[in-house]
């Protein structure tokens, strides 16, 4: 997954991580019934 993301270039997602984590996140996004813009607070950048 990591290599694939990297090889495709372009913007890397903020939450790029281990395959197992990506699966959890993908599952969450796919099951979102209420589609909202996926991002953290626009001004908050750190941990």
């Amino acid at each position, binding site marked *: 997954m*990591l290599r694939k993301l990297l090889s495709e270039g372009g913007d890397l997602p*903020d*939450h790029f*991580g281990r395959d197992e984590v990506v699966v959890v996140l993908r599952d*969450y996004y796919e099951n979102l019934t209420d589609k909202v813009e996926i991002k953290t607070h626009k001004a*908050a*950048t*750190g941990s």
Partner: protein
Amino acid sequence: MSNLIPPHGGKGLTCCLLEGAELEAEKKKAAGLKQIPITPRAKGDLIMMGIGGFSPLTGFMTKADWKGVCDNYLIADGTFWPIPVTFDVSRADADAIKEGDEIALVDPQTNVVMATMKVTEKYEMSEDEKKYECEKVFMGEGTPSADEFWKIAKDDHPGVQMVMNQKEFNLAGPVKVLSEAEYPEKYKGIYQRPEESRKIFDDRGWKEVAALQLRNPMHRSHEYLAKIAVEVCDGVFIHSLVGNLKPGDIPADVRVKCIDVLVKNYFVEDKVVQGGYPLDMRYAGPREGLLHATFRQNYGCSRMIIGRDHAGVGDFYGMFEAQTIFDKIPAPEEPGKALLCTPLKIDWTFYCHKCDGMASLRTCPHGKEDRVLLDRKSTRLSLRHHAPEAPLRGR
């Protein structure tokens, strides 16, 4: 006998949460008191004062505390504290309350009385004083002059907006906390009181514990930071923000699941403890990093992991300002009054193809073209704020 770092303030864990008969009696009394609605920020502060997370604070700050914290990081009795913890009310409510009164603080979302408070001081906060607080608490290397700061802060800094939108008066005084709200049920197994995390660490025989602050899904850099901590401490406490969320934030239960799979697959499990705390962000950048260390000391952590742009807000702070601020705070000599939790400072981390793994500017000799950055914004900021000390080859 615990080997852990003592709670901040030298008074043990100061817990304002009532239990048993005392709680029932106070709840009855609260029903007859003037009801004042609270903000999500105050709700989080109250719960932290309830469970000892904000030890030694046992109430909202007086004007002297507020001024001391803004100017010197010290409350009036000389104890270190990095960010004002104040409680605001409207002029109309302030007019109806006099010093000495008891009031009930109510969460307007649930109508639950979160606490009672004995008002010992009522003080007006003028626009100029709010601005003063903002400049002291939120200004950083990104906007070194007040002019530059105010040009963008009013529109772009959520912490500034929060303070400027506070009502006209502040009330100070000790609180009795009546509820931990939804946290114990909703985040069962994750939400802990400091006494609970301390017991877990004690049971494992830990002495040096590092805290990793998380409010986003745990990615490779976080994993790397946590593993560095495990190498130099007895264990790591992965501590997630489970307070108020904004639209688009990834819910805490999903973030917790991400941590679970990471720990299960990539960590020695008994070197990691996962937990959650009931605060929202204050968006105070470096000062928030200090707050993170202060309440982690209460949870039993002797080190606070501070990486790149910790608690960052847009372009307001230098990439490593949350690390250097630890070198600038006062260290009161009286026992208990200084912050004891120290920062575990970690440089800018990334994935490097040539290193074939995670690395930092201190360990990777390769060029920019070999490194995978987590996002473009961080690259831009990093180059701007960090390049002189850490030149990137192949730029």
